[in-house]
């Protein structure tokens, strides 16, 4: 029946398995009918590596090859030997789940993916079985991006699992994934994830071109990809958002941005990103919008504190003492009077110490890391002041600065901020307030000049667009963010339709009822009258 149906209704076109790489570019080596030739070729190509297992079957007339370290023995048993045992098929080559090929090069790629290949003497076809083993940790919340409320899962090192996390959240046919093989030697899988119809096609094209230009032996981490494709490498500011949170990536994709994911790392890059996107956290959208706005403002103030506070203090103490109100002059003077070094040196020493403590804390195992924090922070801080090397106020200032720099939800930007403290300290130490103004102007001009994938980095502040300020300094209620922001380059602006119209209906029905209740007594009276 099936045959007749196909003959009458089918279009007789043989479909082929879809591979995501262009096969025309791949080398081809036809398989031979002689089993020994094939096996020898493979052995030679793999340089007699010891974990290439060759199991001889059928009394030497067939062989099963796989890379021991990449396959799951249980799966081999399940897919290859179980059907034989239960007599479902006569030979391994006839197992329906197998993928057949005549190209030995393709089988090499298969072996590297963790497939097992089966070859028979006298037959050219090679059967491939997907028996890859993978070891995944659980998708637990990333350590560096914790939230109080909201989803608590995070990306892991497996690309498929990560894409699965996204697809589960966006069940839409427009969600498109494009695979790339980057790294000439490592052949790392890279995936572009975007929502077709919302994301600007030119943006995708732009990213694709930049990715295709990468010619490197290995793609080791997202940092590699980032530096290859970002607009301006001569900038301390990160131009792509790094995140390990699926909900954040999904939100970005829904805004029309593109996520770039790499095999072997949980970190996902988001392009284009603006300065303010580094100050958004998933938490903000789970809070009341009042508190969300409040927290946003605190974070953005922390930007100014983190890069400006030590500079401001130095400028005041060494140039503009008259800025301090009369009541404060004596305490401040007392605290800095005994110190041997100029404030500039003081500040540099303290800032460097803080950086040392932080770096030491990261590299050490957690229990020791905490000890370092206590020893460094409390003991050194206290001793340094008592020894008269650094003033009390300077310790306060530097500690506040460090705290402010950790408020930024993004780790890279936080590092950038702490780095930018140094030039400003120097400028403040040499030119006082004028130096600080100069430094801030240079930073602002730099930020205005920066672009991330055709989007101004400081959007929506420069260029100013009042409508898009709704998710920067403030966080307006969700239903008011009905348009996608311009800085994501989305081609479909509408994101939220009228969603709170029930309120008006309720109101109008209430007023109707109120009207009725006023009218009713009359009506009632009329009735009773009648």
């Amino acid at each position, binding site marked *: 029946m099936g045959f007749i149906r196909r003959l009458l209704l089918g279009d007789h076109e043989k479909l082929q398995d879809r591979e995501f790489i262009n096969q025309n570019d791949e080398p081809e080596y036809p398989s031979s009918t002689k089993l020994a030739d094939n096996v020898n070729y493979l052995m030679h190509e793999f340089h007699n590596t010891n974990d290439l297992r060759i199991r001889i079957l059928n009394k030497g007339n067939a062989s099963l090859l796989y890379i021991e370290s990449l396959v799951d023995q249980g799966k081999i048993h399940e897919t290859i030997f179980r059907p034989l045992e239960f007599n479902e098929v006569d030979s391994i080559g006839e197992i329906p789940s197998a993928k057949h090929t005549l190209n030995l090069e393709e089988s090499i790629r298969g072996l590297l993916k963790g497939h097992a290949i089966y070859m028979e003497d006298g037959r050219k076809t090679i059967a491939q079985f997907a028996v890859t083993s993978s070891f995944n940790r659980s998708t637990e919340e990333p350590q560096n991006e914790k939230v109080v409320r909201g989803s608590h899962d995070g990306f892991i090192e497996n690309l498929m699992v990560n894409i699965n996390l996204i697809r589960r959240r966006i069940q839409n046919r427009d969600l498109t994934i494009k695979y790339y093989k980057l790294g000439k030697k490592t052949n790392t899988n890279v995936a572009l994830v975007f929502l077709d*119809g919302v994301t600007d096609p030119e943006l995708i094209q732009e990213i694709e071109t930049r990715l295709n230009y990468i010619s490197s032996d290995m793609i080791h981490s997202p940092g590699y990809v980032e530096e290859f494709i970002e607009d301006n490498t001569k900038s301390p500011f990160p131009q792509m958002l790094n995140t390990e949170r699926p909900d954040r990536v999904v939100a970005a994709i829904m805004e029309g941005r593109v996520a770039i994911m790499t095999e072997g790392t949980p970190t996902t890059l988001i392009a284009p990103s603006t300065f303010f996107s580094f100050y958004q956290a998933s938490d903000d959208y789970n809070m009341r919008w009042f508190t969300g706005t409040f927290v946003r403002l605190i974070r953005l103030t922390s930007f100014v504190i983190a890069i400006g506070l030590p500079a401001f203090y130095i400028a005041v103490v060494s*140039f*503009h003492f008259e*800025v301090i109100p*009369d009541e404060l002059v004596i305490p401040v003077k007392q605290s800095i009077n005994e110190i041997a070094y100029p404030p500039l040196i003081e500040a540099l020493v303290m800032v460097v110490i803080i950086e040392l403590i932080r770096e030491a804390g990261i590299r050490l195992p957690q229990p020791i890391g905490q000890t370092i924090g206590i020893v460094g922070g409390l003991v050194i801080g206290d001793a340094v002041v008592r020894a008269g090397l650094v003033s009390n106020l300077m310790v306060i200032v530097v500690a506040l600065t460090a705290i402010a720099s950790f408020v930024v939800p993004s780790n890279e930007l936080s590092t950038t901020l702490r780095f930018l403290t140094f030039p400003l300290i120097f400028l403040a130490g040499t030119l006082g307030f*004028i130096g600080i103004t100069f430094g801030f*102007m240079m930073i602002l001009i730099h930020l205005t000049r920066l672009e991330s994938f*055709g989007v101004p980095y400081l959007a929506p502040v420069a*260029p100013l667009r009042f409508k898009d300020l709704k998710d920067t300094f403030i966080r307006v209620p969700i239903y008011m963010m009905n348009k996608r922001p311009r800085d994501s380059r989305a*081609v479909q602006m509408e994101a939220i339709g009228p969603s709170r119209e029930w309120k008006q209906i309720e109101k109008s029905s209430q007023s109707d009822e109120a009207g009725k209740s006023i009218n009713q007594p009359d009506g009632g009276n009329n009735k009773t009258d009648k």
Partner: protein
Amino acid sequence: MKPASQSINQTAETIKPTNNTKEQKVSRRQFFYILVQTQIGVGILSLPNELHAVSRQDGWISLLVAGVVLPIVLLILWLIAKRYEDLTFFQINEKLFGKWGGRAFSLLYSCYFVSVGVLIVLLFGRMISLWVLPNTPFWVMAVCIVTVGVYLTNGGLLVLARFYTMVSLLLLLLITLSFYSLQEAHWMYLLPIGESGITKIILGAKEALLSFFGFFVSIVIFSRVEGSVKERFKTMLQAHFFVTFFYLLTLIISYTFFSTKEITFVPEPILYMLKSFELPFIARIDLFFISMWFVSVATSFTTYLYMAGQGLKEVFRLKTAKRANVFISLIIVASASLIGYDMTKMETFTKYVIQSGFIFTFYIPPFILIVALVRRRIQKERDEG
């Protein structure tokens, strides 16, 4: 599902992002802020005192007169720019005065812009050394402001516009600070109104015109602003009246805070006034004011640098103005350092720059307009003949 996706595709085709920032036009709002930031700058601190020297407490009337007269010049500039909507000012010159005449003309203008730049640097350095850093050598201040200028200009007009719009927030802060001081105003100081007489007031108005010199940028970037010709003129007027209002506010505040006699002794009334205030957590607001004023000065300076750079670019047919900008700023630093804090040299220099300012921004534009009109007439006759 089908129709929805189709409509998505349509929007994808219609909305084309403009990647090329170089050719992108400046919005009218940005045009407004460019005009405002260029005009409000180095002069704002000394304006009250200078006007007072001529027309005493009626200085604010002089300013109003200047503010009312100036739109005539704006109209002339607009009439020129509107004729050649797609050309920059320097290209218009070449069109009107021929290849070499136009180039010479543009070069003269560039020199004028450079000299204004030098003047700004000089005044800035002097003010900073008087108020904030008495021991710092002049060239350090010059290098500071010029570095900002070059970095900003080399970003292109769009970056310039974006930055100006952003820092205009500071103007709001300045206005708030000024309002804070209104509580100490003595309105009696303004009386008697019109005491100095009409001639003095008119002379004062001439003095007041100086602080509006920056309006000339409107014709230089006119072709790179969005919107219809009329809309752009409206923005020019709006910016002009905003600047007038801002100056008026500073004048009234300084004239009501200091009496007529006092004001002759304070060269920078606003600063002296702020110096006397003390907020609970901070004293000496004038230092903060000066830091914000630095931004305003830097923006005016940058505009002149930009104009000079564009001029050189057009004259020497350069691909970009970047090299020209660096070259100009080196000249500015060098020539400003030659004068430095030397008051007598500076006064002569200021005099020359002001005179050439009047020539280049007030006397030449009508002449250009006449040439344009005559040329058009000739063109028409030729077409008819």
